């Protein structure tokens, strides 16, 4: 009995071993069969999917943290042709919700190019219509019979970010815009396009949850903080718009800079465009230089340039503030007669009087006394004819003709001294004048305050471009300019604040001749003189109310300066000096 039992056990064990062996053999055979290879191949096809990760474009803020450029969600609406059940329903829905042509959509779905399985029907669709379409798709799915697809099956929605500008046209000339292809144009958007856009990452993403850690890390674009003060920018644009109306001007700019470090606080221009409707660009501007004239539209600045001539004369030791000369109302330079703005002699004048009365003859006298070498050397050091290096796309360099150039004539030494025959952008003049306001050092104007990425912020330091004049010259000239404004009772004066500045009235060359009736009215000024915290440049193009900068640009400066001291919390001089004395 025991032996029989033992035999049964042995047989049973042998059978079990055989079965186990058979299972192992079968497992091995299946694993290595041709079918297994096919299955493995099929599985590997779905193990990874190629995906392109587009990082969100970096945001742009003003210096106080107001969002100037952000991102909002829009949808790409497409159709998966492999699962489409009712092309007519899809075409009808797209036609109704998105306003597309029904026949075209239907034709696209029914006659797709060979090999195409997914087709984009519409992109940059706003949230509301996209959501309505999604709801419609769900409704049709619910109405469909159990186990069958709804009429809109195959309609796909992919969300993606689109650039959005909450302030619409505010500071449009500074910010620039982004096309639907994601490329930045003009301003910050173009200058820092690479930084803002981030780098798209194309990667095979595992569908296997065990490999979730292989999901690539895509850093968003760099966030930029601008030096622009949103409220000051809004005020500048409002004042500029009102000024154009008041003085009948064709166009104009107001630029505000911190002369201590080159930070641009506001850059107002006309016309401006709503950046959310960038496709209107061609209907607003006739050429690219109109987008931001402050940096890209050189013009003959006129008498505002006299401050540079005087700075050169003082710094080179050609004159002192008390040097006098007899103004006869005309001077011959290079065979041409140069006259004062009113064609009248002004008698004996000191250098402050030259600035106060804006005497062309005086300036031409100074430049000829300095000689072309010294005069143009100073103008070159002030940066005329050179790019300022501002961090905005589309800057123009202007033109400073130099002796030896084919189109330079000896008379240019005289006319250049009072800002005719030389072209510069408003920003170039500001950069040059920053040397006078800033103790002899020119600052490089810039609009980028900081950049932030991945939780870290890098603040852009101030850059100084050179020291064309001494600190003593700068302080002396600032004082002279302030006195000249006060002496003439300039409309540019701001009660409670000591301001230094200079008007400019430049005739506009028309068909090779200067037209006395068409001028560019300008004013450059800064304050408070003992601690300059703002520098303002005004340019009104062809004002019809008056051709003189002293009657048009100067009062605009005063209005802008008054607004600036409020918005920048700059107390009147007596309070500030009282605080400093304590």
């Amino acid at each position: 009995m025991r032996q029989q039992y033992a035999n049964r056990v042995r047989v049973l064990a042998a059978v079990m071993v055989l079965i186990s062996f058979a299972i192992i053999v079968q497992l091995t055979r299946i694993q290595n069969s041709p079918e297994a290879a096919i299955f493995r191949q099929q599985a590997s096809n779905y193990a990874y999917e190629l995906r392109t990760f587009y990082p969100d474009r970096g945001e742009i803020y003003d210096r106080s943290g107001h969002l100037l450029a952000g991102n909002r969600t829009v949808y790409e609406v497409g159709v998966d042709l492999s699962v489409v059940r009712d092309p007519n329903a899809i075409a009808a829905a797209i036609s109704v919700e998105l306003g597309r042509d029904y026949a075209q959509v239907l034709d696209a779905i029914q006659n797709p190019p060979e090999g195409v399985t997914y087709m984009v029907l519409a992109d940059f669709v706003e949230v509301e219509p996209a959501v309505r379409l999604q709801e419609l798709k769900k409704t049709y799915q619910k109405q469909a019979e159990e186990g069958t697809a709804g009429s809109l099956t195959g309609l796909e929605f992919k969300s993606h970010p689109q650039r959005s500008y909450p302030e619409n046209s505010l500071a449009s000339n500074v910010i620039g815009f982004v096309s639907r292809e994601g490329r930045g144009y003009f301003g910050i958007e173009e200058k820092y396009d690479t930084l803002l856009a981030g780098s798209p990452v194309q990667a095979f993403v595992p569908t296997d949850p065990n490999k979730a850690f292989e999901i690539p890390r895509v850093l968003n674009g760099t966030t930029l903080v601008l030096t622009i003060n949103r409220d000051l920018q809004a005020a500048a644009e409002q004042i500029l718009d009102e000024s154009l109306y008041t003085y009948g001007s064709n166009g104009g700019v107001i630029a505000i800079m911190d002369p201590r470090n080159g930070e641009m606080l506001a850059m107002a221009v006309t016309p401006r465009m709503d950046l959310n409707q960038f496709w209107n660009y061609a209907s607003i501007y006739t050429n690219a230089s109109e987008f931001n004239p402050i940096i890209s539209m050189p013009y003959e600045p006129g008498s505002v340039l006299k401050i540079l001539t005087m700075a050169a004369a003082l710094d080179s030791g050609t004159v002192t503030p008390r040097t006098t000369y007899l103004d006869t109302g005309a001077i011959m330079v290079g065979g041409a007669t140069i006259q004062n703005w009113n064609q009248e002699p002004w008698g004996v004048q000191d250098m402050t009087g030259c600035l106060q009365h804006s005497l062309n003859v005086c300036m031409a006298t100074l430049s000829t006394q300095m000689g072309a070498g010294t005069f143009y050397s100073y103008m070159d050091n002030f940066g005329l004819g050179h790019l300022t290096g501002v961090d905005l796309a589309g800057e123009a360099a202007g033109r400073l003709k130099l002796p030896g150039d084919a189109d330079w004539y000896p008379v240019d030494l005289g006319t250049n001294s009072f800002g005719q025959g030389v072209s510069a952008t408003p920003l170039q003049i500001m950069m040059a004048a920053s040397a006078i306001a800033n103790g002899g050092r020119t600052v490089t104007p810039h609009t980028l305050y900081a950049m932030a990425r991945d939780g870290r912020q890098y603040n852009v330091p101030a850059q100084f471009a050179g020291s064309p004049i001494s600190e003593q010259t700068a302080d002396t000239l600032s004082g002279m300019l302030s006195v000249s404004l006060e002496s003439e009772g300039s409309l540019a004066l701001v009660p409670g604040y000591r301001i230094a500045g200079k008007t400019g009235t430049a005739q506009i060359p028309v068909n090779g001749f200067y037209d006395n009736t068409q001028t560019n009215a300008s004013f450059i000024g800064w304050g408070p003189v003992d601690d300059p915290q703002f520098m303002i440049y005004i340019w009104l193009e062809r004002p019809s109310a008056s051709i003189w900068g002293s009657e048009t640009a100067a009062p605009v400066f005063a209005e802008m300066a008054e607004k600036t001291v409020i918005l920048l919390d700059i107390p009147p001089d007596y309070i500030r000096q009282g605080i400093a004395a304590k």
Partner: protein
Amino acid sequence: MNIQHVNHLVHAYKIAPWRVQRQWIGNVLLVVVALAMVATLYLDVTSQAAIAGREIQDLTASIAASQQVSADLQTQLASLTSARVMGQRALEIGFRPMKSGEAEYLVVPGYSVLEPDILSSVSVPQLSALTIPPEYNESLLDWVDKKIVNAVGGMP
């Protein structure tokens, strides 16, 4: 039951032929049970890892969606508080632009003008192989393999 009877039973057990067989069966079963436990443990760890991986995938998608919603809301908020809108609202509720002569300045000891701080949101720890300890993403076989490699590599 006397001691002699007990000794007889012990002796009979020791010389029983099935005793060796049972020992064999016992040992085999022990190995089978051990293997089953390891397999169960492996299966459990693997399934948990798969669930965690799926959650990671879902959370990654959720984070992306949330960031998109956040960007939308941020832009909407900026539109609602734009300079034009705020200026308009201020005028509507009776404010007017201030003139420079109307400002009163007070000295506040220790006050300094606020400078822009980091404006981007705090960075979120990103998923990557480097940030997850190996205990959370390696399988049992990986662990055994690593130990063997280390042991072999550690030998002189």
